[in-house]
């Protein structure tokens, strides 16, 4: 590598600190009148050609920019594992069991309103997709699960989802208030022990 002379170094430094693409005339204000500026710019552009940072000329102005193939480095996407909220999980379950369903239908089954963000999260996850509109007044959007949903949950089809009888057998249909009563009684006892 040829050692850059001081004029070349000055041009390089001036280009580096410039706030915006800079014309040779503006560069002259910094690096002075002596020195072959066009030659220096070409030499520098050559030097930086194969590197991570390139010197480019756009409409008579020069600036350093990162090589275009490295955009992914500068804007890196990072996956962050996150657990679905309870509301999202319930909404997903209703869509899976009842698809295609509208938001109003989901709310009717859940007995609770569905927040806007909940469906957004499910769509972002790729497990839920819009499946057209219901041909009723208001033409509400209807939702269904996706192929990604099946593969993520290890199902070959929606028919693999356990039916109501399976759920009951697994104790998953036990009324919640009974379970709560059990908990309540327990905590009272614990308090009495104090």
């Amino acid at each position, binding site marked *: 590598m040829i050692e850059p002379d001081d004029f070349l170094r000055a041009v390089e430094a001036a280009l580096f600190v410039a706030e915006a693409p800079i014309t040779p005339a503006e560069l002259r204000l910094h690096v002075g009148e002596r020195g072959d500026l066009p030659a220096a710019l070409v030499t520098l552009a050559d030097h930086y050609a194969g590197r991570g940072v390139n010197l480019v000329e756009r409409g008579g102005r020069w600036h350093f920019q990162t090589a275009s193939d490295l955009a992914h480095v500068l804007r890196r996407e990072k996956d962050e594992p996150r657990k679905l909220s309870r509301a999202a999980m319930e909404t997903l379950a209703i869509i899976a069991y009842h698809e295609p369903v509208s938001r109003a239908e989901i709310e009717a089954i859940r007995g609770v309103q569905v927040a806007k963000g909940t469906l957004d999260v499910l769509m972002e996850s790729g497990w839920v997709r819009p499946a057209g509109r219901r041909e009723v007044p208001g033409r509400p959007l209807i939702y269904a699960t996706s192929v990604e949903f099946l593969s*993520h949950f290890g199902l070959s089809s929606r028919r693999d989802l356990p039916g109501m009888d399976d759920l009951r057998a697994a104790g998953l249909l036990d009324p919640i208030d009974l379970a709560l009563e059990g908990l309540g009684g327990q905590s009272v006892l614990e308090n009495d022990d104090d």
Partner: protein
Amino acid sequence: MNNGLGEDLFTLPAMPRPDMLTVSFDHWEGPLDLLLSLARTQKVDLREISILALTEQYLDFIDGAQQVKLELAADYLVMAAWLAYLKSSLLLPRQEQADPSPEEMALRLQLRLQRLHAMRDAAARLMARDRVGRDVFTRRKPEGLRLVRKALWRANLYDLIQAYGQIRARTQPVVHTIAKRPVMTLDEAIQRVSALVGTALDWTRLEAFLPPDLDSPRAKSALASSFVAALELARQGRLEIQQDGIFQPLYLRAATPQDAPGQIL
């Protein structure tokens, strides 16, 4: 420390001695600062400084200063008094010296001057370094690195099924069935008490008329029903009840034939 001295320039009376400082008084940040400046006029390494000579310099300076400006900052006068004391101690015969020894006090002063000088020198060298934004420059408008965090949602099949089960359980129509509680009815109690009281010739506690399984859930119900049964049988004149006081045990016995109905106790 130069409070009260204002912007006035104070110069020493014209005494052109080479080791004399003739600069404004508010040039100094305090007695130590002034002492260091005086010490450096000795033009020797601070480790070689003569504390006696320095004391002379300082006291001369303060003397001169007072001729012009009486309101000298107290700190400077305190230092002057301390140095005068140090000087006289250093000149005293050794055996009359106090503790700490004047030599140690002088050495301490010397070390303080060395330390201040060292830091003053270090500050100057630090400031003279190539500083970012003055001597070296970074890019003025870097694009910045961006880290876009993308959520990778996780959930498993069990959570999904369980969630659905809970919705269904929560929204099922609730059917209330009233559990049959183990109780002794009043009729049962009346039968039992009236049958038993016939065999009891003397006062007998109410509890004796209860069924034997007293620990069972029925016990309280049996006690309450038996009490009401006793009241009813007493009203009918078939037995008598006696109690010595509130919350005392209740005693029952079969009524004697001459007792009038309804007469209790």
